């Protein structure tokens, strides 16, 4: 380093990049572009291609060819339709429950709680993110088994909890993805100036009116941001249904059971959640909230 101290030669790389704008640009975005196009888009593209292939009925080997059969089956097999609708409703329910929990919690944390309570709650919300995903699912399974914690705790009251079914799936998914909703909502509420609450109160609005007329409109972008996570992550999940859903089947279950048996059907089916998410984002964009995110 110290040998090269002549004028103009101290930073040859910087000097070169200064002169060559295009190289500079490639250097800047080359790696992320390779990631997005080379890995992300390309693998999605490969997946889409597979969806047009078919399986040899005799050897059940995948044959390269062209058929729309796999896509048609999504719309013609009753079990597939009902599974798609069920999954959509579960994902919407998870999002809805997350919002219902996140908004009051966010208001309390941002505007009412003392600093140490706020910090404790923030840690409590993010803590589950540190535990393994599968561990959390199995934990929920153990809580809700027939002789598990839930029934044990409520037995003195004569209440017995639900067995593994769709409500437990929704509960478990909410448990898994709640932090992704709670954190943006909390941040958004925190940014609402306190004088808006004062102004609302001065004009005679009670608590719920203030929440409905002032808080909610201002945090819609945060709710949309959070819902993108809760919705799309729920759409793609299958282990929750497998371990806590009893006989509940979701889109992910169909993909998982076909990934070895009939890869083209699995590939075609993986387009369904993608379609749902795209439609969801388009609707969200319509509301204008994506721009304000």
């Amino acid at each position, binding site marked *: 380093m110290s040998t090269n101290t002549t004028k103009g030669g101290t930073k040859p790389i910087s000097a070169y990049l200064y002169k060559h704008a295009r190289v500079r640009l490639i250097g800047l975005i080359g790696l992320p572009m390779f990631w997005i196009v080379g890995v992300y888009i390309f693998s999605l593209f490969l997946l889409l291609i597979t969806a047009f292939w078919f399986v040899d009925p005799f*050897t059940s080997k995948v044959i390269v060819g062209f058929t729309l059969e796999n896509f048609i089956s999504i719309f013609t097999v009753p079990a597939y339709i009902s599974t798609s609708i069920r999954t959509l409703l579960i994902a919407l329910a998870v999002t809805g429950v997350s919002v219902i929990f996140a908004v009051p919690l966010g208001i309390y944390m941002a505007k009412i709680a003392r600093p140490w309570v706020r910090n404790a709650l923030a840690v409590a919300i993010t803590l589950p993110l540190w535990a393994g995903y599968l561990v959390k699912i199995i934990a929920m399974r153990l809580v809700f*088994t027939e002789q598990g914690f839930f029934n044990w705790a409520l037995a003195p009251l004569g209440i017995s909890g639900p067995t593994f079914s769709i409500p437990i799936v929704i509960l478990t998914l909410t448990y898994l993805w709640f932090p992704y909703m709670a954190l943006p909502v909390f941040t958004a509420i925190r940014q609402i100036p306190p004088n808006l609450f004062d102004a609302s109160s001065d004009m005679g609005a009670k608590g719920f009116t203030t929440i409905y007329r002032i808080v909610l409109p201002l945090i819609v972008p945060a709710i949309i941001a959070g819902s993108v996570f809760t919705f799309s992550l729920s759409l793609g999940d299958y282990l929750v249904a497998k371990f806590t859903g*009893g006989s509940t089947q979701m889109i992910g279950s169909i993909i998982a059971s076909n990934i*070895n048996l*009939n890869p083209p059907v699995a590939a075609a089916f993986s387009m369904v959640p993608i379609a749902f998410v795209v439609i969801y984002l388009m609707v969200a964009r319509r509301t204008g909230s994506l721009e304000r995110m």
Partner: protein
Amino acid sequence: MIRKKLSAFSLLAVSVLILSGCSSSGDTSGVEIEVPDIPMHESMGDFEGEINIVNWAGFVDPKWTDKFEADTGCMVKSRTAGTSDEMVTLMRTGQYDIVSASGDAALRLIVGGDVQPLNVDLIPNFGDEIAPGMRNNIYDTVNGKPYGVPIGRGANLLQYNDDVTKGAPTSWDVVWETNSPYKGKITAYDAPIYIADAAVYLMYHKPELGITNPYALDQTQLDAAIALLKQQNTIVGEYWSDAVAQITSFVGGNTVVGTSWEILRKFAGKPNIKTTLPKEGSTGWYDSWLVSSKTKNVNCAYAWMDYTSTASVNGAIAMNFGMAPANIAFCSSSAEAQAHCDEFAAEDEEFFKQVWPWTTPIETCVDGRKDVKCTSFQEWTNAWATIKG
């Protein structure tokens, strides 16, 4: 392609002629199946120095691979698979030399040309000590040619919580019929091959369907089995493919009756969780070693099959996994071995006569019918997806 079809026809014609002339022992003689012509290994050569195995958990363990590696110089690389379907997918990559396939994977691999016929002369330990019920079965012996070396077997039993049922159910009706007293607390196996369990039940209760082999279902028979499975879907509590989930389900009380394996009952470790073989009989898994048609380590693969067929090693695998060993000479080797064999009915051919070994369903009816086309595994797969709704 056309030539292939023609040869299939002539094969069929010849086989019919042969059939009318003689009918030798076993189920397999009745069926000719079109398989790719793959040459078998003629004579042993030098060991290649490595062997890549796809296996069930517990089949490959340093307890017996260390000695094999020292003896042959073939270094063992093992890849554990969770399901038969995963095994088939892995074997088709061509990266593996040998697989411990169950019958529902084996026949698929054979007709797909993914595995090669075996030269049993090069496997001296594959002999009379192998349990009679594990020899010459359709899933690994096709057109008289052996493709697999038996490892072990187990039945799909009816497991029940004795505290609730107060005695062993005598029939599978407790998991199939809507009036089952255990409605909502039933578990079923989560794979297309479970359709065969419905067929076994129908064989007994609906003889008018004419099912003689649960793996040879024509369209009408498959439809009946699917209808039964859809009926079961309304009373089932859980489907299991993960063994741990099934065990916790029985132990936790969510499941009272359902399909299980002897080893899972053992793992559950509760005196009130028991298994039984109901009057209808059942299905079972019979595992064999199959050698890839694309293997580069064929000598190591043969050495491995021979080594694992010895009574002591085969017995060690069987005890480690929890199944009946193929080599029943193991049973008399020690008191512990005998206890294991008795627990898993290894020498009880009368027991296993009631068990239909998992076999991949193919278009050729494996029950020997020629006048109809049977439903293939692909059709079973598609049908299976419609059951859970």
